[in-house]
């Protein structure tokens, strides 16, 4: 054992044990990536007015998050970009059935960099690559493939699709110019400086984008989770939702 061993051991122990000190009460929130700014803002405000509560946020594709909840990942509140995934968890009794509330809706747009020529769904087959969220787990991708199927261009587009992990990644691909364009939500497009909305996808081509929030079975047992959950159903999130470009139900 060298001389440096003991200090090294102490350092190791300190690193391993740090964070296990007295912790604030943690409320785990799993939210669709398109809701990031809204949840961030609500959490910051809530943590300020409730010292001792820490909102731990996990953003991703709603389907991937639902799968994590199924697998037992810590999540007390689930904010999904699609009713389907909440319904699935409801059937599995992993969320409180009477807690499910739609708090906002959104719209699908097609974005691209300056100079990309696409003014409607029928122009898409002429492009070489477009990004969508993976339809298996990303609601924005599901809505996008639904819209392409309704517009009868799905077959022509099949080999042009780059599947992103979530809607923000699809936006990133379009921003970097790695793809000609991407299907994202109106709210995401609004936040991007390097791409513009080339066209809005006609609403009759896809289901309404609704954001239901739900209290999970694990969350129902935690008063702190229930308290933060009630905030979502109150009037509190409305101004920030509106500011970010969401439509209120």
């Amino acid at each position, binding site marked *: 054992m060298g001389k440096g061993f003991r200090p090294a051991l102490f350092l190791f122990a300190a690193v391993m044990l740090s964070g296990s000190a007295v912790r604030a009460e943690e409320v785990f929130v799993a939210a669709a990536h398109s809701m990031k700014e809204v949840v961030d803002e609500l959490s910051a405000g809530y943590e300020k007015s409730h010292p001792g509560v820490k909102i731990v946020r996990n953003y991703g594709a709603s389907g991937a998050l639902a799968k994590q909840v199924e697998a037992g990942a810590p999540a007390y509140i689930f904010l999904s970009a699609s009713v389907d995934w909440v319904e699935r968890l409801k059937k599995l009794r992993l969320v409180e059935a009477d807690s499910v509330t739609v708090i906002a809706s959104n719209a699908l747009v097609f974005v691209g960099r300056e100079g990309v020529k696409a003014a409607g769904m029928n122009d898409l087959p002429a492009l070489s690559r477009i990004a969508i969220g993976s339809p298996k787990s990303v609601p924005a991708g599901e809505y996008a493939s639904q819209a392409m199927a309704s517009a009868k261009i799905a077959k022509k587009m099949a080999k042009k699709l*780059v*599947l*992103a992990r979530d809607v923000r990644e699809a936006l990133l691909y379009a921003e970097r*110019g790695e793809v000609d364009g991407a299907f994202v939500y109106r709210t995401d497009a609004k936040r991007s400086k390097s791409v513009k909305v080339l066209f809005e996808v006609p609403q009759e081509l896809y289901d309404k984008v609704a954001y239901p929030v739900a209290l999970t079975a694990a969350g129902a047992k935690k008063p702190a989770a229930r308290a933060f959950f009630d905030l979502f159903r109150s009037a509190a999130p409305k101004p920030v939702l509106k500011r970010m470009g969401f439509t209120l139900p």
Partner: protein
Amino acid sequence: MLVPTDYEAILLSLKVGAAATLLSLPAGFAVAGLLAFGKFRGKMAVEIVVNLPLTLPPVVVGYLLLLLLGERGVLAPLLHALGIRLIFTWKAAVIASVVVGFPLLVRAIRISLEAIDPALVKVSRTLGATRRDALFSILVPLSMRGILAGASLMFARSLGEFGATILVAGNMPGRTQTLPLAIYDYAAAPGGESAAGLLCVVSVAISVVVLFFHEWLSRRAVREGLSG
């Protein structure tokens, strides 16, 4: 239960692995030779550069490749001038595999080259063999085990490549979606368990076959080493 794009993912993985391995063989052999026999300043630096992808997170390799080869990357003007598009094509997946698999190839070939008695080459040269003759009739045949072992390891590594591939080749079903990417896609989807499981079985099966071949080669090498 598997859909056509899943079969395409399996085939694409094999194709990318084979292309990456075959493309790397000449350079891999040259670099291994340089490291085995060469005495020059900065050899350590070459070793570190060659082995770096072995220890770097693949996602770092992928990100650096993206900065280099992306549509707005460092080499973009050159690639555009040549009319080459790499990013989000299967060629990008091959490049990613070449970078991460190269050190494995070099290591295996280098070990087998170092085991060759240098006197053999010298003797052949005194007997009038050209450098070319010495290369193809002594060095290549005697290090064939190492070449095959390195190639099989590199191929196996390519099959598992994920971090770098997803960044530079994207995730395009039927185009650039390799086996690990297809599994990842299913793994993130509720209800994707059975398809993910099935593709995992395929993945394990391919890896077992490749590793079996690799083990068989190294055992033969050991046995012949003992008897010879």
